[in-house]
Each structure stands twice: as C-alpha cells, then as structure tokens.
C-alpha cells in the first residue's frame, strides 16, 4: 500500500470522524441516553513478536451511556506501522561464486495498515473535572498488507480483545480530553504473512523455482526475530477529544 492508497483507505474513516466532530457543536461528558464521541490519536507499541514497529495511530470511540457510569459502543483504531525489517533479513547475491560473488543484506519491511474495531463497555467514575474510567471490549482486527510488496491485495483478519483505562478531563459539561492507555490483543496472529520475501520450498532445486533470499550468511550477526506467537498484546497510548454531539442527546445533561 503506497501513500495514495493510504489516503484512500483512511478517507472514509476521516470523513466519518470529521463529520461527527463537526456535528458535535458543543460537547459534554457522558450521561445516560447520550452518545459520547471521542477522537483519539496516539502511539501504538506492538508486541515484539508481532514484528511491527511503533506507529502513530488514530481512533474513534462512540459510547452510548446506559446510565451515568456505564456506557457501551463501538471503538475503532487505525495505524500505519512498518513491519520490522530486521525480522526478515534478506540477501541478494550477484555473480558467480567461483569467480567471487557479491552479496548485499537488506531488511525486508513493508508499510501496512492495522485496523481494529470492537464493541466496548466503559465504566466511568463520576467526577466534577476528572473522571477515571476503565474499558473492555471484543472485536476484530485486520492487517492490510502493502499491495506492491505482496504483488496484490492481501490481508489478515482475526479476533481482538482490548482492555484499558483512562482519565477524562472535562472542559465543560459537554467536552473534555481523554488520556487513554489500552491493550489490544490480537489472536490467531500469523507473523509469516508479513514476510514479503519469496518463500521457497527447500526440497525443490533452486533452478526450478524462485531464488532463495533468506539470510543464511552471517546469521550470528543479525539478532534473530523473537519467537513467533499466535497471540500478541499491543499497547496503545492516546489522547482524545471527547464530546457529546448535539443530535445525540447533546441538548442538556452533564456529569
């Protein structure tokens, strides 16, 4: 996925979030029978076994208040990390060995999009200005791989759960800022799909299939990738703008 593709994939997400932000008019903190929208932005730190570099992430929470302390609703996050190239060391060799060949080493990485969404429940302690909260949800994640690196569209879908806590600082009875820390656990994770290298069958002679590019030289000089895991836990640190859209019960209420 190149930069243009990135913008394309983000467009719907941005339009939706922007529309909600504009429609907010004023904002207020959570109340019963109201929808609170929070646009978040921050940094996501992935599990080392996920082979994804840290990346900026944007997110959107839309929580419907069942009462003053409990709310439920969908949450979404979208990040654009690079895969960790050092976990996929690649060699390209030129020349004929008996004449002296030349080998170059590369870290094979690719930019991908990580979208995860969930249905969350949030418990919030009421407060005048500061309101701590905890959240928990179940949903799914999708890894959209780079189209060019993978010679076509390729993605991976799995179940994700998240849990976190945060603090809401209210500017007014309708707006506030959130400081949020959340873990996002991806299940059925498959790091191998992040490997953009051509994989070859070692039982088949090289001259009848793709050239082998895995690093078998100087393996001790490159730190090996962490052991692969089927379940990876990532952490998301974000700051958000929380507000109550006027057409979602924003006409009154407060904390």
């Amino acid at each position: 996925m190149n930069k243009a593709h990135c913008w394309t994939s983000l467009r719907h997400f941005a339009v939706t979030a922007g529309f909600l932000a504009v429609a907010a008019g004023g904002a207020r903190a959570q109340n019963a029978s109201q929808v609170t929208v929070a646009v978040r932005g921050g940094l996501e730190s992935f599990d080392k076994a996920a082979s994804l570099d840290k990346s900026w992430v944007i997110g959107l929470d839309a929580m419907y208040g069942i009462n003053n302390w409990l709310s439920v609703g969908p949450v979404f996050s979208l990040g654009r990390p690079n895969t960790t190239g050092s976990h996929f060391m690649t060699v390209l060799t030129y020349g004929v060995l008996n004449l002296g060949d030349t080998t170059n080493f590369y870290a094979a990485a690719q930019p991908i999009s990580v979208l995860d969404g969930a249905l969350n429940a949030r418990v919030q302690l009421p407060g005048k200005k500061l309101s701590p909260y905890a959240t928990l949800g179940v949903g799914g994640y999708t890894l959209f791989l780079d189209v060019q690196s993978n010679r076509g569209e390729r993605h991976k879908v799995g179940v994700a759960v998240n849990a976190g806590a945060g603090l809401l600082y209210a500017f007014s009875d309708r707006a506030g800022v959130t400081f949020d820390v959340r873990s996002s656990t991806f299940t059925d994770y498959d790091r191998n799909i992040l490997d953009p290298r051509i994989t070859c069958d070692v039982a088949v002679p090289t001259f009848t299939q793709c050239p082998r590019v895995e690093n078998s030289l100087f393996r001790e000089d490159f730190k090996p990738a962490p052991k692969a895991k089927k379940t990876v836990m990532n952490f998301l640190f974000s700051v958000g703008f929380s507000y109550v859209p006027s057409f979602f019960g924003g006409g009154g209420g407060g904390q």
Partner: protein
Amino acid sequence: MNRRILVLGGFAILTAAACNEKRALLSDPIGASAYGYQMQQQATNIPRGSVRFKFHATPAAVTPDSFVVTLQGIDSLGPNGFYTAWAGDSLGTTFKRITGVLEAQRTDTALDALGNVLSQPQPKVTVGTFSAIQNGSARTTYTWRFERTNAGLAATDSMVVFLITVEDNNAATTPNATRRPLWARRSEGGPAGGLATSTLRFGNYAGNPLSQYLFVPTPARGRGVIWGSILEVTDSTLSRPPLGYYYAVYAVKEVPPGQTNGDTLFVGDLTSPYPRRNLSLYNADSIRTDPLVVLDIPPSISVGAARISADTVSKLPKDVVCTDYGDKVVSCPYKGYSNVRLTLESKNAIRGRMGPARILGAAIPFVVTAGQR
C-alpha cells in the same frame, strides 16, 4: 467554534502523520557488501615421498640392506618436535631407531621472459647423519639414506617397514604410540631382485594394514566470504587429520616477485560452524570434539569453519582506510590479502606459522585485496 477548529485540526494532523510512512523496502543495503569466494581443492605439499628398499634376494647376496628415503612436503617442527626414523618388522611389533645420511635439495622458482614459472633445482647438499630431523620446507626434497650397519641395526633386525614418527624429544627409544604419520612397507613395492620401491604413506600407521588410516585430502571443499571486518571460511567433507595434525586457516598477503614483505595471517583452527563455534576441531584427529560434525565412520569432518573479526585481531591495523566508490572513506582491514588457505598443520610445529600442506585455497576477491568495500 474554536473548539471545533481545534478538534478538526488535531484530527487532520494525526491523519497526516499516520500516512507519512517511510517505505523501508529493499532499497538500502545493511552494512558492507559481502564478497564470497570458493575454496578450490589444492591438495599440494602434503607429506609424501618414497622408500627404496634394498635387501638380500638370495642368501649369497652381499649387498647390504638399506633404505633410501625421498621425503617432501614436511613442515619444520618446533623445539618439541622431531621426525624420527625407525625400521621394523612386517607386523609392526618391533621397531629400532635408525640413523642415516641426510641430503637436502632446494628447488627454487624463477620467471622466464614470458612470466612463466620455472623450476630450478639447486645442487644437493649433505646435511649430516641423523636419526631425527626437525626442519622441513615446501620447496626442499630430502634424501635420507640408511644402511644396515651404519643405521645401527644388527643382522637379525628386520628392515621391511620404514616408519617416521613425530617425537616430543630427540631421545626416544621406542616409537611414539600414536603419532606415526609416515611409513612404507617393502611388500607394497613389488619386491624383486633385491629391490622394492614403495610409496611413502601418510596417515596413521598400524601393524595390520587393515587398521591403518590413509589421509586423503581430495574430498574437501568449501567457501568463504569477507563482509566488512569479518572473514569467514566454511569447509566440508574433510578427512579427519592424521594423529598429531589439525586443520588451520590462513590469509595470505602475497607480494610480487622480488619483494619480501608478504605476510600470513593465522585465522585460526577450524571449529564447528555456527552456532557451535566455541568447539574447536584442533583435537579432531583423536577425539570427536563435536559429535555433530566429527565422524568416526567414515573418518571425516562434515563441516568446519573459521571466522575472525578484524576488530579483534591486533595484526590487522584498524587505521587502514581506503576510498570506496564515490570517494567514501571506509575501513579495509584485508587490503593486500590475496589468498585464503586451509592447511594441515602438525601439532608439533610452531602454532600460527603456516605449514606447506595446503588442502584448499581461494583467491580473495580483488575488490577486497584492492581495498574497496
């Protein structure tokens, strides 16, 4: 209104940041380029020679029994190493130390007008009378003559096996039980008319020929690579060295004819390959130092490796820098080194001094020799 602008502005910044990816694809190599080379079989200057046995073909014959030994490819030993000569019986149960007259003939090389290498044998020189010698050379042929009486043998002593052992001192009265690398049997030389010429065998002598071990250098192969400061060689299908020998790797800095500032760099003994480089194969002649690679049947080393990093070798000056393509100044520690060799070394020789027995060799890619990276 201001709040809306703030919200939208923040969101726009985050969205832009999310799309500002760097494409870390296969565009930038990591580190220097690695230059590979293939180790070629050389199998040259292995200890070798022949023995001419002269014996009484009939009871009436009067010509004294003798050995005339031609010996090449032996390395000079250190202060605790002596090639010692013995005469024995066919079963190898009785040996007597023998003394003979040693002659040496050096063979020099020269270049003709076209640059061809010419062999130029020098006159033979009588060195003296010895029962043990210490010095050898890749370019010296020794002729060692033993006549029964002068050798110190009685008329009843057997002279059907000639044996050279490597002893730790010059006072041995019985042959070293294990280091018996060179021998010849009269029976193998087609004895007829009081004469037999047998090839000198190299390996581990045993009284029973079925139990002896003949060293074969030819199955060896390998490859190497130089990557920045790292020099690495990986060899495979090596015969296990004879008892008292080990494999070592050297880098050679050759110089043109007429210059004398060439040099060798002791890369090290062969070891097991990664990730067991800590297991040296120095004692693979006698024990299975690493059962994964040292085999008894067939007696071989399936894989051996040697590796150094120039950063840890004092002989490689760190301040040697070269100009790379694009006038970039880079370190080039192996500048001038032109060859890599796998040699067979005697444990009684001086460690770190390259011996003549060359098993494999390779030319280092010119780009390294020339000092580019």
